[in-house]
C-alpha cells in the first residue's frame, strides 16, 4: 500500500491537531510542520505529540537542544527513531607528547624520560601537567589509555635490544598485583637501521596526582637515539577496578 500525504495549510494557533477519522487506520512515517513564531514572546520548542482518544498525551517528540528564539520560526520534521545528535563534541581529555633524538645510553640501566624536553599538545591542561623529574601528572581520577611509540635510530650502533617502560601511573590494585610499573615492551633491534616499538594499555588513576616517567633502555653497545610519541586519553571518570 503506497503512502499517503495528509496536508493541512490552514494557519492555526498552536497546537495544530490531526484526528484520525472513524473507520480509518494510520501508521505515520513522518510529520512535517511549518511554524510561525513571530508572535511568541519567549523561546519555544517545536513538538509532536500523540494523544489518545481521551486526550491524554501518550508521548512528546521534541528536541530540547534546539529551541527556537522568541519571535523565530521553524520548519520541522519528525521521523521515527531519529533525533538531533546534539552536536556533541569529542569530550575526552588527552595529551600527546612528541620528542626527537632522545639519547639513551647502552646498558642495563634505564634512561628516565620526564617529557619536559618534548612538545606537548593537550585539550586539558588541568588534567595533564608535566614537571621536571616527576614527569607526566594525571590530575583527575579515571581510566586512561596510553599509547607509546619509539622509533630507534641505531644506524651508528650495533644490534641490540631496546625497551621502553611506562611508570604512569600504577594499576596495582586492578591488574598487576603490587607492581609499580604498568607494563613494558621490548623488542630486538636486530641491527636494522631503524626499528619501531610501541605499546598500548590502560591506566587507572585511582588517586589525583598520579604521575610517572618513561624508562628507556637498550643494549646495542653504544649510545642510540629514538623519536618518541606518547599519548594518553581519559576514557572514564570512574576509577573503579575491573
Amino acid at each position, binding site marked *: 500500500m503506497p503512502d499517503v500525504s495528509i496536508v493541512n495549510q490552514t494557519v492555526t494557533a498552536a497546537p495544530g491537531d490531526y484526528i484520525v477519522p472513524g473507520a480509518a487506520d494510520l501508521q505515520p512515517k513522518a510529520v512535517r510542520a511549518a511554524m510561525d513564531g513571530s508572535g511568541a514572546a519567549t523561546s519555544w520548542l517545536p513538538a509532536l505529540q500523540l494523544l489518545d482518544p481521551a486526550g491524554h498525551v501518550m508521548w*512528546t517528540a521534541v528536541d530540547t537542544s534546539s529551541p527556537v528564539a522568541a519571535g523565530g520560526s521553524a520548519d520541522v520534521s519528525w521521523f521515527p527513531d531519529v533525533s538531533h545528535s546534539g552536536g556533541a563534541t569529542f569530550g575526552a581529555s588527552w595529551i600527546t607528547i612528541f620528542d626527537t633524538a632522545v639519547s639513551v645510553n647502552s646498558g642495563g640501566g634505564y634512561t628516565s624520560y620526564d617529557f619536559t624536553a618534548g612538545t606537548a599538545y593537550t585539550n586539558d591542561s588541568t588534567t595533564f601537567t608535566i614537571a621536571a623529574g616527576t614527569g607526566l601528572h594525571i590530575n583527575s581520577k579515571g581510566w586512561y589509555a596510553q599509547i607509546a611509540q619509539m622509533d630507534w635510530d641505531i644506524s651508528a650502533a650495533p644490534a641490540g635490544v631496546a625497551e621502553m617502560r611506562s611508570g604512569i601511573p600504577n594499576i596495582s590494585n586492578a591488574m598487576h598485583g603490587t607492581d609499580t610499573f604498568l607494563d613494558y615492551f621490548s623488542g630486538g633491534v636486530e641491527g636494522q637501521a631503524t626499528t619501531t616499538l610501541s605499546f598500548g594499555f590502560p591506566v587507572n588513576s585511582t588517586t589525583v596526582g598520579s604521575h610517572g616517567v618513561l624508562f628507556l633502555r637498550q643494549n646495542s653497545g653504544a649510545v642510540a637515539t629514538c623519536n618518541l610519541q606518547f599519548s594518553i586519553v581519559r576514557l572514564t571518570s570512574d576509577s573503579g577496578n575491573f
Partner: protein
Amino acid sequence: MAAPLNVWMPDNVDLGAGYTLRVTALSPTTGALVAGVNVTTTVIEGAGTGDLSSGDFLAGPFMLVPGPNA
C-alpha cells in the same frame, strides 16, 4: 508541567480512530504551551486504511469544544 525530554517519534505507530497527532510549541523550561506560535502547514506521511484525508485538522484547544449546533 515538567520540561520535556529529548525524545524522538516512536517507530511502528499504528493509530486508530480518535487518536490525535498534535503539532505544538512548548516552553523549554516548563514544557507548557507557548502562545504566539502559528502552525502554518502540517504534512503527515503515512500508510493506512480508510479515508485519511477526511481526518479533522483542528486548530487550538478551543476547536475541540463542540459549537452551539453540534
